[in-house]
């Protein structure tokens, strides 16, 4: 698999973690031996209220990179990130798809004004254009973008928290996920189902605590197949990047599938990372 972009470590210096500032950062902090591979996206805009790229962001970008050949063949017209934060993920996607001919348009949403601005700056600094809208999930876009979006990427607020922290102002909204970290995820899934085109794909980060197998079953009931593209584990936690697509998608038939009826959380835990690397690299 050829990459036009470098797979070096991302040159982003991580901010120091202040106690209580960002539980999500702490939870997704991985041992240093797991290196992050990502597009060379530089952090050009920093704000104390904007979630900066962390291991979950890197895992999602790595998943997109691992699936880049498929994405190129997929020929998406509209790509969308829900909850774009500083814009690292959507900018990476736009960069790796290398669209110089305007065949793809990129949209991103966030509820945090500082994040929306940061995404504009990050994408501009990397020579790509992302249309950013301040809105809750995609509430102001959903009606018109229905069944139009070919690729949706989401690094949702997945950290289990008290329900009242969900959707708070500022950076808290970027990680606070309510019970089992599922409050926002469970709102996003039906929205994405409505947005995705017939051939549409969703890439989403989940934590084991989010019960990813249950998420796959729920999406299975909506007619989606799924597979884990990337898994990252620490002693306490495990991140999965899961790809979803409609079962009717003939083009995907050659790919391995998650048997949504039989998937269990233990199966998720046992999924070997080395298997993934062998298969996809």
């Amino acid at each position, binding site marked *: 698999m050829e990459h036009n972009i470098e797979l070096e470590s991302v040159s982003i210096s991580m901010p120091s973690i202040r106690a209580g500032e960002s539980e999500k950062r702490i939870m997704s902090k991985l041992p240093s031996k797991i290196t992050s591979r990502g597009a060379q996206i530089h952090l050009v805009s920093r704000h104390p209220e904007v979630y900066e790229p962390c291991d979950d962001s890197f895992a999602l970008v790595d998943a997109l990179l691992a699936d880049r050949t498929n994405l190129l063949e997929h020929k998406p017209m509209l790509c969308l990130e829900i909850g774009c934060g500083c814009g690292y993920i959507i900018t990476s996607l736009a960069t790796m798809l290398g669209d110089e001919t*305007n065949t793809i*348009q990129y949209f991103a949403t966030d509820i945090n004004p500082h994040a929306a601005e940061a995404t504009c700056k990050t994408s501009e600094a990397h020579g790509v254009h992302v249309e950013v809208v*301040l*809105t809750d999930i995609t*509430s*102001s*876009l959903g*009606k018109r973008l229905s069944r139009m979006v070919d690729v949706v990427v989401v690094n949702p607020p997945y950290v289990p928290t008290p329900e009242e922290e969900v959707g708070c102002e500022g950076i808290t909204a970027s990680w606070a996920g309510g019970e089992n970290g599922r409050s926002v995820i469970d709102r996003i899934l039906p929205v994405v189902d409505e947005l995705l085109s017939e051939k549409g794909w969703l890439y989403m980060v989940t934590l084991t605590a989010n019960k990813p197998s249950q998420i796959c079953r729920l999406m299975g009931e909506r007619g989606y197949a799924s597979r884990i593209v990337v898994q990252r584990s620490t002693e306490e936690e495990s991140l999965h990047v899961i790809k979803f697509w409609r079962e009717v998608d003939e083009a995907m038939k050659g790919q391995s599938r998650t048997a949504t009826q039989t998937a269990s959380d233990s199966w998720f835990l046992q999924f070997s990372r080395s298997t993934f690397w062998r298969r996809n690299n």
Partner: protein
Amino acid sequence: MRLLTHNMLSSNIKGVTNGYPLRLEAEKWSVKEVDLNRDFLTNIFPRIEWKPLVESARSLGLSSLPDDADPSMLNSDDFLKGFHHALLEIHVEEGALICPETGRRFPINKGIPNMLLHEDEV
């Protein structure tokens, strides 16, 4: 904010049944040239609401778009150029989008439309 995005936005205030199209009041906008892609324009054309595009383009002084459009026009280079320019090359930097039913103003600052609702609007 491109006019493509304006074409996709609706007012989602609780109780609003006719939240589309939002009236565009642009105070500041810029033009950034990008390459024209015939395939993209052809693919997106059926999904564009034509009247809102024409009205928003005309509010910015752009008169090249016809009142009505049908897919056969995509064969015309002049039509494609006008469509491309209106849809992708104009960036509204400052202004507002106005809900057709309630008159609520959604501000556009630094090119970003703020469609966030107040608590009593959700």
